[in-house]
């Protein structure tokens, strides 16, 4: 699974950093850095982080299967 964080929306409440510290971290006070490819053993934590995000900035989804027809 892949994630992308809408950093336009992110206000560094850092709920994700508490819930999934192996995927999300803060650089300085409020710059969020994250791992876009979520390891399977972190997926449940990332789902909790996405649900807990006060500004709902985290999108979890499959990478697109970009096949020609």
């Amino acid at each position: 699974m892949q994630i992308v964080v809408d950093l336009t929306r992110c206000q560094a409440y850092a709920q994700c950093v508490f819930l999934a510290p192996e995927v999300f971290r803060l650089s300085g006070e409020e710059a969020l850095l994250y791992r876009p490819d979520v390891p399977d053993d972190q997926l449940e934590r990332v789902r909790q982080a996405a649900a807990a995000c006060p500004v709902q900035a985290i999108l979890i989804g499959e990478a697109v299967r970009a096949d020609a027809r």
Partner: protein
Amino acid sequence: MPGDLWEGRIVIVGASLAGLRAAETLREEGFTGPLTLVGEEPRPPYDRPPLSKQVLLGTTTADATRLPTRRDPDADWRLGVAATGLDPLAKRVLLADGESLPYDRLLIATGTRARPWPHPEQAALDGVLPLRTSDDAAQLADRLAAGPRRVLVIGGGFTGSEIASACREQGIEVTVAERGSGPLVGALGGTLSKLAAGLQRAHGVDLRCGVTVTALSGDGKGRFTGAGLSDGSHIDADVCVIALGAVRNVEWLADTGLAAGPHGVACDAGCRAFTMYGIVTDDVFVAGDVSRFPHPLFDYQLLSLEHWGNAVTQAEVAAHNMVHPGPHRRPHLGVPVFWSTQFGVNIKSVGVPTFSDQVVIAQGSLAERRLVAVYGYRGRVTAAVTVNMAKWLEHYQSLIETAAPFPPAPGAADGHPLVAEFPVPSDVPDPKGLSHGPTVALTGHLPDRRLTVVRPGS
């Protein structure tokens, strides 16, 4: 009839963030016809912001930033093949492999590419790299991991500054060369450029402003070894990153009669492309970095934005309007927002800081590197930039949307007293004097002086 719009054939040219989000939105809105996405890069859509941050720091690999989908867009993907032309009468997109794709409605989302170093033989030196694509980022990350003696970054815009930050975080010596008076000056004006310069120097960046790089030199075996500057000095370095801003991918639209030029493809607030005569089309739409669109908050000037958030929201509006008839169409009126993380601070911007004549530090201070700078034009608030105070952005966005008076009244910041600094000129430079391209361009003129005349076909 709406029923007709939910069918037919749609082609999206550009398979990055805007193209993907448009494709998803078309399906969410009920479009059932065949949908084709054309992308010049062979990779499926990926996210670019991490390329100048996590990827250069080595905490993420360049091939790991693929974008998640909200839903499968159920599309025919033509990746690794560029669109080379458009026949708007026959309604066909021409591809580099000779194929032509028929469409009923077309979305142009071809974005931008890195502005190349102007001397091809110097740009070909081993160690001279741009940073725009996933492959660029993979190469640069490898170079940084190899422990270069010094990296030279040409251009002190957001990308150049983020690269310098990633170098310093790994203890790599870095020189930033910028033709303008300071880093980020093209986007944020003089006051915050001074803050950015201070940040860079405090983190050990060798920052050279007001200079141009005159020549890149090699060792005779094709390897980059250093560069000469216009002040007569010479920088010895192993790696040179060209961060001169972006060029809009519009060449494939030459001779189509569309209003396509160096600033992008002009469209209306509903994302419909204009012809070169200013007549709006109804079957060609535009979204993302390649577009320029009018915004009522900024005197209806055409804005070109290289912003992640704009690519998403404009793509969603364009897709909605591609499958809805006139009265149900929506305008793209979002207030521009962007962010940059560098040297441990988070910089966020709302509105258009270059659309200003004055700026005031409304909260915090330059010394703390924690502040809100508010920009005004003729007595109304037009932009705000936060440094490590992102939670305030929404408040200032509402001031911009309501054309609140500038400077903002004491107390407007919810109990925080207005710092007793008088507004100073916002000191927005003419972009022609910069190494980096500003990521927001008012493509007509700055409020207080005419900068650019856009001629069709030029």
